[in-house]
């Protein structure tokens, strides 16, 4: 609980700007305008959404990318005032009767990558922002003091307010602001908040927390726009919070063209979830942590900085443990009405460390990524420690994935003698030392000590350790799990060439929301040829991109499946659910579509984002390589842990008899072979996508997709010219 009463905090607010606008109904999923706020000069204005924007960029991430493209220069840095933080929903956001329809996408230039990051997030901010009248919120400039933005969709009023007293911890601030801007307890459900935290000020991977009011628990909860440092940009602009309120948002509020189609899809999937979820992944009881045990069984669970794929203690942090810890029997959707309801929490968790030591709190999570990344990958198999790390990452406003990977990198450096207690400020970073990891996180939040170093991310640490401690840069590059500056999410990809590509080619960096092909590739062997892999690496990234154009969660697409899905052609696409989404789109907009039409929507935005990367000095073949730890064994121990498998591959795939060869020699041969195969993969993927050998979308591709705008063409022409010289 806050020390300062909410009413005292509110009294300390000083209004710096106010804007009144006309409230208008949403039409067929679109509010048809975006909101622009400049924190430097306190401008607040509306911008129209054009038919051209809808045709080319659809909404959500597409709108946000277009707005950012037009706002920044080629060399705008993440902490320049002209960088923008953009929150966009999408035409299918806020349907509510269909699961997973509350998402927003946050887009900005990332402090980690210097490229554009897009990060999707649940909660009710997305629907309420649309209900308030806006398809996107665009924030530019920097305030000269800590401020909040309040968007009141009931009165049509926007204010920028100085907010000096709110606490820099998300779990407090989200509650404070919700109480402050709700009329009473019953009204709390009509308020949603965006908040960061103190850790976002001292790391490159700060997050944004997007809230909703849990009616049963009477608690304010939040999900995260976690990847890429969105919270760091937020705090750099001296934003403390954003409040959006909208009363009366319902399934009808989108004013859909053919609501009967939306009802049809919603009823079908709701019935499916009710009948089948318990027999499938138990999303309603466990959520994504169901994956921990499975990944461990298939040698895919990252352990000790992705050195290994399984651990004998993994059962201590697997499905049944979390099921027992989560409060059961409460509707755990991160938007009102979600039938998949997988956003679980541990109530009354007593903290053992940090500024809230001794207090009982609600811990939202963990999701799979947190269990793997704050757990197994650090050698931690204590669920209580994972919950404490989860809580503090969230309230400090720190990405659990980037923190987890940065910590794992530091711990391996400690294992290998690059770091020692002197260099860590006395901390013993032995695998499994949860106490030390917690201390690093607390230091990071305060901007002190070794925590401050870990808060810079893997790419920065690689350079720092090489320069400061004369560490071998080759080793650091091999074990530093980042691409384009963004840390990997938590799957071991050593035996899946397709997933290596899925991670490394991804526009934003190695986040699996573009593709998750490990089982199709490695276990099912459904994509054996390069062409098969390239086709999968075309379809699935495009399909998954589609969700972010519309304000949708991907989980209802394939974390639940129809009973007869396995018998359908191309079951991994879950064709009945693709049909559901076609119904949703036509139901909302009135425009009939096929699955191919949806893919085309994504292709436009995806390729535009690739060109945006090129504009920022990346986005080419040289930027699409994973570290070798993601491709094969870096160390002798790794090779020996899978010796039978690797020796067999040497013999059967490469034609080399391993007998008599040293492990180092075998590793060298294997590495050469895998690198060559990766190059072949890139060639196949680029060709399939309509890109050059350097990974640049061709002019024909731009034209085909209708994104051949003059300045887009300029960027590509310049890049093609340079390609010709190389």
């Amino acid at each position: 609980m806050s020390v300062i009463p909410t009413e005292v905090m509110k009294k300390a607010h000083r209004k710096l700007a106010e804007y009144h606008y006309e409230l208008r109904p949403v039409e067929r999923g679109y509010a048809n305008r975006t909101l622009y706020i400049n924190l430097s000069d306190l401008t607040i204005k509306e911008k129209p959404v054009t038919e051209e924007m809808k045709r080319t960029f659809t909404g959500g991430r597409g709108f946000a990318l277009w707005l950012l493209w037009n706002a920044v220069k080629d060399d705008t840095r993440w902490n320049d005032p002209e960088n923008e933080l953009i929150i966009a929903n999408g035409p299918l956001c806020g349907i509510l009767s269909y699961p997973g329809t509350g998402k927003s996408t946050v887009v900005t230039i990332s402090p980690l990558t210097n490229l554009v990051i897009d990060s999707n997030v649940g909660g009710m901010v997305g629907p309420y922002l649309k209900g308030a009248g806006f398809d996107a919120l665009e924030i530019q400039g920097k305030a000269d003091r800590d401020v909040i933005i309040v968007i009141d969709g009931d009165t049509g009023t926007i204010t920028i307010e100085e907010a000096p007293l709110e606490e820099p911890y998300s779990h407090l601030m989200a509650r404070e602001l919700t109480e402050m801007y709700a009329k009473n307890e019953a009204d709390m459900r009509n308020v949603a908040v965006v908040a960061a935290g103190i850790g976002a000020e001292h790391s490159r991977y700060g997050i944004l927390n997007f809230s909703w009011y849990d009616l049963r628990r009477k608690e304010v909860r939040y999900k995260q726009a976690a990847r890429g440092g969105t919270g760091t940009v937020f705090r750099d602009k001296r934003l403390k919070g954003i409040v959006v309120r909208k009363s009366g948002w319902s399934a009808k509020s989108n004013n859909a063209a053919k609501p009967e189609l939306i009802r049809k899809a919603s009823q079908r999937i709701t019935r499916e979830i009710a009948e089948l979820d318990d027999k499938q992944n138990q999303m309603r009881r466990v959520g994504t942590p169901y994956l921990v045990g499975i990944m461990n069984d298939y040698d895919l669970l990252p352990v000790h900085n992705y050195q290994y794929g399984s651990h004998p203690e993994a059962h201590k942090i697997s499905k049944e443990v979390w099921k027992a810890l989560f409060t059961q029997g409460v509707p755990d959707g991160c938007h009102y009405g979600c039938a998949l309801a997988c956003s679980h929490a541990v109530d009354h968790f007593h903290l053992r460390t940090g500024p809230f030591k001794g207090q009982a709190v609600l811990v939202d999570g963990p999701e799979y990524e947190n269990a793997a990344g704050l757990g197994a990958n650090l050698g931690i198999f204590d669920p209580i420690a994972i919950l404490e790390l989860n809580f503090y990452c969230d309230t400090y406003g720190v990405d659990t994935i980037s923190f987890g990977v940065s910590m794992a990198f530091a711990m391996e450096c400690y294992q290998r003698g690059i770091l020692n207690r002197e260099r860590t400020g006395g901390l013993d970073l032995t695998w499994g030392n949860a106490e030390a990891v917690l201390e690093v996180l607390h230091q990071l939040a305060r901007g002190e000590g070794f925590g401050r170093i870990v808060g810079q991310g893997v790419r920065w640490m690689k350079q720092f350790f090489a320069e400061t401690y004369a560490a071998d840069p080759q080793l650091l590059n091999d074990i530093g799990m980042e691409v384009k500056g963004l840390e990997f999410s938590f799957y071991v990809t050593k035996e899946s060439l397709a997933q290596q590509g899925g991670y490394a080619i991804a526009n934003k960096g190695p986040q699996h929301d573009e593709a998750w092909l490990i089982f199709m590739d490695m276990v099912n062997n459904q994509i054996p040829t390069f062409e098969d892999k390239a086709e999968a690496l075309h379809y699935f990234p495009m399909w998954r991109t589609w969700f972010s154009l519309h304000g949708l969660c991907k989980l209802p697409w394939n974390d639940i499946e129809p009973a007869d899905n396995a018998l359908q052609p191309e079951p991994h696409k879950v064709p009945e659910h693709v049909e559901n989404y076609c119904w949703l789109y036509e139901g909302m907009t009135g425009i009939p579509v096929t699955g191919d039409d949806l893919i085309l929507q994504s292709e436009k935005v995806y390729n535009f984002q690739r060109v945006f990367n090129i504009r920022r000095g990346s986005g080419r073949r040289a930027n699409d390589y994973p570290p070798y730890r993601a491709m094969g064994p870096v160390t002798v121990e790794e090779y020996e842990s899978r010796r039978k498998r690797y020796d067999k591959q040497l013999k059967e795939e490469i034609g080399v008899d391993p007998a008599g060869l040293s492990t180092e020699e075998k590793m060298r041969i294997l590495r050469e072979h895998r690198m060559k195969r990766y190059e072949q993969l890139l060639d196949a993927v680029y060709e399939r996508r309509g890109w050059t050998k350097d990974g640049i979308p061709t002019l024909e591709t731009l034209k085909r997709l209708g994104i051949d705008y003059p300045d887009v063409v300029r960027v590509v022409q310049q890049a093609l010219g340079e390609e010709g010289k190389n």
Partner: protein
Amino acid sequence: MGKIRVNDKFEVDWKPGMTIRDIIKALNFTFPMLVVTVNGKVIPKDEWDTYQVGENDNVRILHMIAGG
């Protein structure tokens, strides 16, 4: 002893009377949502303990896993 090739990738030692369940256990395929075909024909789950696989059968065990 013969071998059974699963998913055109994994090899399991075959013996007469081997069932689908035996193959799943041998490969440690613990994921609950599996689809099994033998020579292109889907074998329902309730037959996995009794359906016997021949030495040269083409066995596919697909994991209908979403993930990520």
